[in-house]
């Protein structure tokens, strides 16, 4: 049997030749993401802004307009009504009614009644009520855990490698997270607690690739003391290219299946991790690796005794 070789033996792709265009592309993507975040914002779920959410599944495609007008007639304040994962599933979100206790349930029952009127063949899958107090905490915890994850991983890499690698890791992670946030701003997929889990996973797996490449760069730096940094990084990337492709493909394969066949409720989570896996593969090659050139990693980086100052190194290696 002939084995599949997605990447031929002994490739010699000059990846680093395109590092400037790639940098521009990355910057443009980040700028676009920030712009989208500013312009459209994130579609935050009740987990993070508080309020009530009712999720309903219909036998056929959901009659969005009928639901909208029925709920609008209830005079319960602004309601956001959108598809959730697939056209048969709808999420209805609205602010908490003022006052304590029973009024919350009363509002839910009225909305349920209105939805039944719009289409009797409906199943209510979930009702969530989150007060402002809880949602603020959840948002804070989510943000803090994401930042801590980025910092924790960067510090670990700094310890295992050199400071430049740690900085490279941080920038790579911010790059991936920013662009994935942009993806959520663009698609307006609901951002809930699950999506935070997705972001943390992206942070973990995005660096998985990067670490393998860094590991090889370190190995080659020790092996080929005389080689210039640019060809050395190209060599390392080419040597690990087959692995990068095979692993990324198997992850993407599994996640694509999850996205289309798996449970609808975690569509957002699956989409985020899938998108992050793709961005992570790109950023390994075009953010993590060239960052080392810009940060002045050289043949001496792992020989601490005779290391020149970083300023000198940066000066020498700047393209």
């Amino acid at each position: 049997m002939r084995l599949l070789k997605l990447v031929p033996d002994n490739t010699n792709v000059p990846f680093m030749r395109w590092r400037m265009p790639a940098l521009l592309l990355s910057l443009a993507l980040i700028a676009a993401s920030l712009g989208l975040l500013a312009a459209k914002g994130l579609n935050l779920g009740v987990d993070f802004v508080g309020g009530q959410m009712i999720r309903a599944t219909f036998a056929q495609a959901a009659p969005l307009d009928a639901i909208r007008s029925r709920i609008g007639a209830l005079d319960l304040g602004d309601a956001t009504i959108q598809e959730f994962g697939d056209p048969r599933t709808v999420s209805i979100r609205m602010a908490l009614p003022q006052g304590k206790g029973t009024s919350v349930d009363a509002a839910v029952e009225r909305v349920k009644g209105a939805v039944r009127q719009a289409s009797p063949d409906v199943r209510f899958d979930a009702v969530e009520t989150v007060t402002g107090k809880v949602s603020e905490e959840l948002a804070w915890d989510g943000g803090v855990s994401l930042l801590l994850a980025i910092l924790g991983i960067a510090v670990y890499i700094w310890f295992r490698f050199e400071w430049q690698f740690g900085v490279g890791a941080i920038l790579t992670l911010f790059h991936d997270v920013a662009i994935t946030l942009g993806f959520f701003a663009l698609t307006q997929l609901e951002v809930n607690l699950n999506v935070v889990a997705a972001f943390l996973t992206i942070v973990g797996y995005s660096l998985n690739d990067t670490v393998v490449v860094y590991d090889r760069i370190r190995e080659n730096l020790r092996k080929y003391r005389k080689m210039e940094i640019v060809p050395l990084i190209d060599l390392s990337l080419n040597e690990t290219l087959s692995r990068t492709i095979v692993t990324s493909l198997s992850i993407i394969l599994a996640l694509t299946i999850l996205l289309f066949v798996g449970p609808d409720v975690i569509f957002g989570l699956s989409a985020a991790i899938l998108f992050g896996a793709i961005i992570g593969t790109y950023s390994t090659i075009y953010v993590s690796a060239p960052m080392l050139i810009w940060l002045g990693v050289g043949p001496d980086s792992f020989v601490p005794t005779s290391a020149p100052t970083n300023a000198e190194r940066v000066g020498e290696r700047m393209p």
Partner: protein
Amino acid sequence: MLDFPRWKIWGIVLLCLVGIVFAVPSLFPESQTSKWPSFAPTARINLGLDLKGGVQLLLEADTADVAKQRFALKEEEVRVELRRAKPKIEIGDISTSGGRLSFLLRDPGQVDEAREVILPLTNGAGMSGQRDWTIDVVDTSRIVLTPTQAGLSNAIEQALDTATDVVRRRIDPDGTKEVTVIRQGARRILVQVPGLQDPGALKALLGQTAKLDFKLVDQTATQEQVDAGRAPVGSQILPFAEGGGKIAVRRRAMVTGDQLIDANQSYDENGAPGVAIRFDSQGGRRFATVTRDNVGKPFAIIVDDRVISAPSINEPILGGNAQITGNFTVESANQLAVALRSGKLPVELEVIEERTVGPDLGKESIRKGAIASAIAILAVMAFMLITYGRFGVYANIALILNALLILGIMAIFNATLTLPGIAGFVLTIGAAVDANVLINERIREEQRKGRKVLDAVETGYKEASTAIFDANITNVIAAALMLYFGSGPIQGFAKVLLIGIVTSVFTAVNVTRMMVAFHLRRNRPKELHI
């Protein structure tokens, strides 16, 4: 490389077998596993509320309420103890304001005696030797009691512990249901009731404090006073639970619900629903005394400061049995009985988060999750096979073992599988082959460089191991943070990831290595087809 000690082989095989054996029950429906012989393992993976359906409430204690109650209680204690003191210590102007309880001594000469009496009313709080109240004397005749932070924290801690027990008893009086009631943080209680679809009933059960008081009606109060809400000294105006209206009652309770030992829904002589209660011996005696002394007078039955009814005492009630009547339905009488039986909540609980998941969604999610997992496993296996041939088969065996080990370990620890956990499982399947990819690619590389078979395999495993280790640590960091910061479902996701990381490294490195060693020893290939 070829040298695999026997104990290591057995260790690996044994570990895998244990994992597989424990994974099996979770793959079959419960209706079948219950019929299995008793020696078969039955521990199975718990399903989270998002997969099982049910209601989840997050309750927060009103800690200001605890502080307020402490002041009221302390004020009462101080009054009683100073009155009982010999000689009696006269006080005036006792009030709580600005977070302090203060009163004036009629005779400033009694400051030291008053202090003597009050000191035993304070208790040690915390480890620092601090007391729960500090006592100060201001302007020679005013005594000020200030609660300390340690004392308040202690009180809140105790209130929350008691409240957790009470909540559990109310939801699950017989201890037979599969409910979760756990403390969360300093002020919260998480309640999960699988299978329930009506959060309203649950909230009604937890919404009442169930503080029961029997108080005499103050018949001296005029209608104008009641309407204006101005109670005579020693009395208070309370609203009726139903139908509006107010009534003046004595502040001091004749008997309270603290002395109850049982409460059941019952019917009165007219067939109307009520609640039959029984007092303990002390409460029963007390009840007998006050009813004997007050025959003919009306008394109020008060739950949570709302008057249920105010019947007249027709005859002394002896024996400690009584009945609460009022405007009850069978359901509301039953709820009150359960609430009274479970004891009063020491603090008011507010629902700050509420999630209800329908029963069908979970079933659908599990089905779709299982299908997605199966297809993902098959797809990744096919991919490995066409990419690495024989070595792909090894990776695939490792992959299947890995999937079973994850399920087995989750079952052993009775871990909870949540909806995001399913995503974690599928992701792990995609990522688990990474270690094998790293090893196999390295072997390919070493072989290209002209190394002999054995040497190439050996170097492949050795050189790949640092990358495998470092690459997985980053995932461990992220998953650990999710475990620490995340709420229920996210923690479920993180657990699956963590278990998956450990098992995948184990299977991908040790199990495949063993199989490769067998292959090399038996067939002694001149060249590896990889």
